């Protein structure tokens, strides 16, 4: 960890810092600093939020530097009465969603922001008169164009969200995505609950398909704030669980992609295979989605020889069967015709909107937290991220099959290292004490991209602010860009190729 005058640098993913050590600037220089930092290609904004307080308003912006494993923390304080500040989004578009969130929560107006609309209609929003039914949609008054609204209730078994298309016939000119229907007040619950086990369960439910990812981020955060160290054996187990989740979801997504283009063979084979993987997770911890598996300080379900063997066998089955079906899917002309060069996000766009995870890696951006800011056992085990260039649906599909292969290799290697290392016998710790007046942040590369949990404690060691950022928060914008000038009938398969979380965004 080192310090300079402008910002605080966290050198190591998931380490805590004294709040006093984080330098505070005024907003003008704060804005300049984050804009100039985000101009660099290897940096992106991982979280940017306001911390409410009695007498002042504090903004914190965390920017990850992918080249040297560091995270830069910028901070600014300003008087409570401030209502108008200049937007940074006009120059660094990737902070647009964060500024919208700050605007919604505090009522501050960012002048020059191109799209200052509500994000999720949170329970604690500043202006209670704004409701989800009164969302200010963008509209074009034209005789030729027409609007198509989809949702919030959809035909399939998916979460609620409203999509408003402006189309010319079959061609989409503009898509506006309105979310917020899933808002449960997760961040407020973290503050009102002050109970270690409840926090764990809460973190598992932030996004049901990323239970392991979010609970791992939460546990890392708690461990760094309370100074707990976990054994190597436990770190390996956590990495294996995370990779199992990645394999299962990627296979399930491949099935859904095939289903959307009516390719039955790919759909049914992948669906059956996903079940094999999640059943292995169930054998391990009793829950198919890994709920209850990750706890701070230890584990209720330590890996044993029998489960390790089952995971090893599953890896073999998946490698063989998924390899076969992936070859089949990506060599069927009728499927390729639906995926190739459709829903393209360019590298330039991806940089501008700060997209993360697989959707960045398909646009030629190397952005993988496992590599750039390693956590848990990935500090010792180097992961080679899969990078594709074309940014279309085919790339997002192919990336999934390549990452499944990659994760299987990781699982096998880690199982081997695990069998030679000392077994962990740590039990979960719930009666820890958090360091007072501290700040910490934890990054995890979930299957959807980087998950960021950050928290602050007050002088009594109680959590005074908790912030969750799901990768979907960045990536919804990528979907809106991907469907521009595409056919409206290709929207569902575009949407599926990103498979973003509604509840992870809405919190």
């Amino acid at each position, binding site marked *: 960890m080192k310090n300079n005058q402008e910002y605080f640098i966290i050198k190591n993913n998931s380490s805590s810092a004294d709040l006093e050590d984080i330098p505070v600037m005024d907003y003008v220089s704060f804005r300049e600093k984050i804009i100039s930092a985000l101009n660099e290609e290897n940096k992106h904004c991982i979280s940017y939020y306001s911390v409410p307080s009695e007498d002042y308003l504090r903004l914190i912006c965390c920017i990850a530097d992918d080249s040297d494993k560091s995270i830069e923390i910028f901070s600014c304080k300003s008087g409570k009465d401030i209502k108008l500040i200049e937007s940074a989004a006009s120059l660094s578009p990737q902070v647009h969603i964060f500024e919208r969130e700050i605007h919604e929560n505090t009522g501050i107006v960012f002048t020059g922001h191109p799209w200052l609309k509500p994000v999720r209609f949170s329970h604690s929003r500043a202006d209670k008169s704004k409701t989800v039914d009164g969302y200010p949609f963008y509209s074009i008054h034209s005789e030729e164009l027409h609007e198509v609204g989809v949702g919030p209730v959809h035909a399939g078994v998916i979460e609620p969200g409203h999509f408003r298309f402006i189309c010319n016939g*079959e061609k989409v000119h503009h898509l506006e995505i309105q979310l917020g229907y899933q808002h449960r007040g997760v961040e407020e619950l973290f503050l009102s609950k002050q109970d270690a086990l409840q926090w764990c369960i809460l973190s598992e439910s932030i996004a049901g398909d990323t239970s392991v990812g979010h609970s791992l981020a939460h546990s890392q955060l708690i461990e760094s704030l309370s100074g707990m160290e976990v054994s190597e054996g436990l770190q390996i187990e956590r990495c294996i669980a995370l990779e199992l989740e990645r394999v299962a979801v990627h296979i399930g997504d491949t099935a859904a992609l095939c289903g959307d283009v*009516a390719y039955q063979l790919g759909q049914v084979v992948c669906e059956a295979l996903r079940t094999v993987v999640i059943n292995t997770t169930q054998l391990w911890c009793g829950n198919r989605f890994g709920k209850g598996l990750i706890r701070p300080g230890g584990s209720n379900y330590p890996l044993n020889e029998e489960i390790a063997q089952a995971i090893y066998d599953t890896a073999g089955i998946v490698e063989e069967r998924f390899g076969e079906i992936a070859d089949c899917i990506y060599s069927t002309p009728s499927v390729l015709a639906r995926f190739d060069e459709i829903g393209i996000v360019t590298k330039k766009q991806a940089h501008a909107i700060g997209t993360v995870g697989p959707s960045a890696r398909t646009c030629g951006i190397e952005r993988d937290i496992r590599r750039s800011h390693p956590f848990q056992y990935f500090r010792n085990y180097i992961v080679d991220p899969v990078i594709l260039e074309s940014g279309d649906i085919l790339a997002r599909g192919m990336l999934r099959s390549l990452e499944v292969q990659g994760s299987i290799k990781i699982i096998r290697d880690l199982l081997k290292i695990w069998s030679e290392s000392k077994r962990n016998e740590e039990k979960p710790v719930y009666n820890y004490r958090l360091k007072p007046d501290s700040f910490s942040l934890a990054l995890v590369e979930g299957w959807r991209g980087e998950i960021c949990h950050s928290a602050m404690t007050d002088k009594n060691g109680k959590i005074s602010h908790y912030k969750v950022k799901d990768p979907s928060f960045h990536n919804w914008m990528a979907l809106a860009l991907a469907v521009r000038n595409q056919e409206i009938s*290709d929207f569902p398969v575009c949407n599926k190729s990103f498979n973003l979380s509604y509840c992870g965004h809405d919190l």
Partner: protein
Amino acid sequence: MAVIILIIITALFFPGIILRIKSIASGRKGPGVLQPMKEIAILFRKGSVFGDTSGIIFRISPAISLSAVVCAMMVLPFGNLKAVISFEGDFIFFSYILALGKFFSIIGALDTGSSFEGMGANRETFFSMLIEPAFFILLATFAMFTGHTSFSDIFAGFHISSDHFILIYSILAVYIIIQIAVVENSRVPVDDPKTHLELTMIHEVMILDNSGFDKALIHIGSYLKFAVFGTLLYNVVVPAGINTILQIALFFSIQFVFALTIGLVESFRARNKMNKNPKFILTISAVAWIAFVLILIMTNKLT
């Protein structure tokens, strides 16, 4: 009358056979062959729900669509047995009575005032318009070398001549009829009857608002349509005037092979991108043109 009974029997099993084939191809047990019929029985016991924005057109359109298909069945012959109704130019009647049924299902969809259904109606109209030439060129070719313009006369006289060009033409005609049936019945690769995604639907989105009794009528109409096109296939392939039992056996085998083809296509390929559909459909018309010119040359009618 025989042909109507045969078509109804076929329609009872046709959708179930497609379902069975798709489930076998995907390694699942799948529902029984009569499952679609059981579902229809359930729908018949239910009432219909009508939206506030829909009017009388929406209520009458399912019944009109079904009766149009039933009328179309009347002009189909079965081997030497003449159709229930037969007159010069009845194939034009056949095509346009089906079009009338489709017209009513389209304006019924527009009547709901839903943006999805408007979009589906728009697509359905466009694709139906493109498939029409294929059907007429096909029938014109039949009319040209048999010298008749009614189904009964065309198919009675079709296989009497034993020229080798008949074989070539039959093969092309089978291909064209199967493709027309795929487009008319909104199956893969043109449409996906299984999808839940409103934005990608063509036919399915038009019937989203229909429920209960009306929905059952629509399903029956589409099952009958399959059997109707299967009957056309049978008439093209099997010569008229052979043993009746053999004829019936061949009729059902051809219908089965037809269902098998559709089931297998749906199991092993993806559907078209929406803007590829017009090309796909125009290709069918192009094949029909080629067949037409081929017959012109072979029968020396050009000179």
